[in-house]
């Protein structure tokens, strides 16, 4: 089994990385997942599989990642601390490694009150930083966080998320520093519409030298309509969508809004590629995976690099 994930090899090979998100279905049929994955195959370096995104019950992330792996994609296992305690989380990390799933993205997760089972007990036994720390301890020291030795350390490439736009703004880069210190080798950010504020955050990141210690991928969600833009602006927690973007979407007729959204996304990618220290993009086209190949192709990011993953 290859030691490094494709994503790790791409990033360490100094290529500008492209990842995309794939949400599993609300049922046991894997066909929908396979169809989405097929769309993404060949045009991204790795595919994130969400872990019961927005606290809505879905086909589990680990099983979905195994399916993607079998299809020849490089999956990123998203793992939230919301639903499982440290026993289940560590067990899943071993399971992921045993299945050849190398990339793990550690998150706390959306609160249960926003999801399909608002009566559920949110576990939050660990927070995202403690999960990173646990995974790194397992991998590098061959120990569980309870202190016990494990027989064969999992091979993991560890990631975390950061929201450059969340409050309090002045603290976000320092929070990233903490995630890097806990073991985050790559970072995927919240989706970016406010480029100015993102540039400012990246400057703080560079000032702290964090771009040298971790690979930062900028999040991107193409807008499908003006209605979606308004929803993102007003309803999604931690989202920063400037008025100018909303106005731009609202100014074009409904039939051309999708096109405008793609145009904005392409312009954003172009601008992002100019930002020093940024190592790639992460496309979160929620239930709109079909747009990903077009975005990647039109940005001139094809073909994706073929890399040596080691033995």
């Amino acid at each position, binding site marked *: 089994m290859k030691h490094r994930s494709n994503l790790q090899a791409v990033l360490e090979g100094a290529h500008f990385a492209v990842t995309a998100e794939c949400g599993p279905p609300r049922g046991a049929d894997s066909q929908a997942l396979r169809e989405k994955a097929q769309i993404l195959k060949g045009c991204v370096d790795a595919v994130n599989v969400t872990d019961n995104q927005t606290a809505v019950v879905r086909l589990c992330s680990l099983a979905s990642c195994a399916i993607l792996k079998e299809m020849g994609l490089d999956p990123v296992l998203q793992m939230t601390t919301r639903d499982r305690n440290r026993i289940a989380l560590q067990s899943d990390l071993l399971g992921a490694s045993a299945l050849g799933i190398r990339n793990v993205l550690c998150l*706390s997760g959306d609160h249960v009150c926003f999801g399909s089972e608002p009566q559920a007990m949110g576990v*939050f*036994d660990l927070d995202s930083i*403690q999960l990173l720390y646990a995974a790194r301890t397992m991998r590098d020291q061959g120990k569980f*966080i309870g202190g016990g030795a494990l027989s064969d350390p999992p091979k993991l490439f560890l990631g975390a998320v950061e929201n450059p736009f969340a*409050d309090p703004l002045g*603290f976000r880069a*320092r929070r990233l520093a903490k995630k890097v210190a806990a073991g985050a080798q790559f970072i995927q950010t919240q989706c970016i519409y406010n480029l100015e504020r993102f540039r400012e955050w990246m400057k703080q990141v560079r000032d702290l030298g964090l771009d040298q210690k971790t690979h930062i991928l900028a999040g991107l969600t193409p807008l499908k309509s003006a209605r979606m833009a308004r929803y993102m602006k007003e309803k999604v927690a931690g989202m920063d969508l400037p008025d100018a973007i909303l106005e731009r979407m609202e100014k074009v007729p409904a039939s051309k809004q999708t096109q405008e959204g793609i145009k904005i996304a392409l312009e954003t990618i172009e601008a992002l590629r100019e930002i020093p220290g940024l190592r790639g993009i992460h496309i979160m086209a929620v239930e709109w995976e079909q747009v990903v190949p077009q975005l990647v192709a039109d940005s001139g990011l094809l073909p994706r690099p073929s890399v040596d993953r080691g033995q």
Partner: protein
Amino acid sequence: MITGTRKPMEEIRAMIAPFGRVLVAGCGTCVAECASGGEKEVALLASQLRMDAKLRKISLEVGEITLDRQCVYEFIDQLTPFLENYDAVLSLACGAGVQAVAEVFPQWVILPGLDTGFLGETREAGLWLENCRGCGECRLHLFAGVCPITRCAKRLFNGPCGGSRAGQCEVSPEVQCAWHLILERLERQGRMDCLEEIYPPCDWSRHQGRGPRKIQREDQRA
């Protein structure tokens, strides 16, 4: 203080339905402070029950008593001379008080008249806030006097999540983000370096991981 809120009348009415003589027993400490189970509330509930019974033409005898505390044996014992006259006790104490009374008088029916809430602070008249979960390992010194276990909806130990808006929690927008408060205070105190520390996972076994907890102090025992 332990907070409680009175159960809805419907629920109380259903609970006492099988009994003809009910003693409403208040508790003069915490639940009196949070205006749900003290002497005043006992008097109010007792007269409501009497009126309700009258309107529905039901025979119901309602007695009233308020103990200083229902969680301490010396006070609970004051119920002894009254119990013979009643079929059930409707306790307006917290869950600890209800259980302590039930433990002392196992042959009597003790009914809970309140829903017990949380360990709280009286912020102002009519406003009580949950500030402590009794986790058994106080770390308030690390978090500028704001408990992230209690006051952060995700119990985050290592900084804020990405969802707060203008310092308010995404889960309950009327609640201040605990981490926002922590950061503000640490900054004011010039102690932002506290945040660089990676705090290890909590030892929940000190909380509720092993069933009910107990404190036993030899120096306090007779």
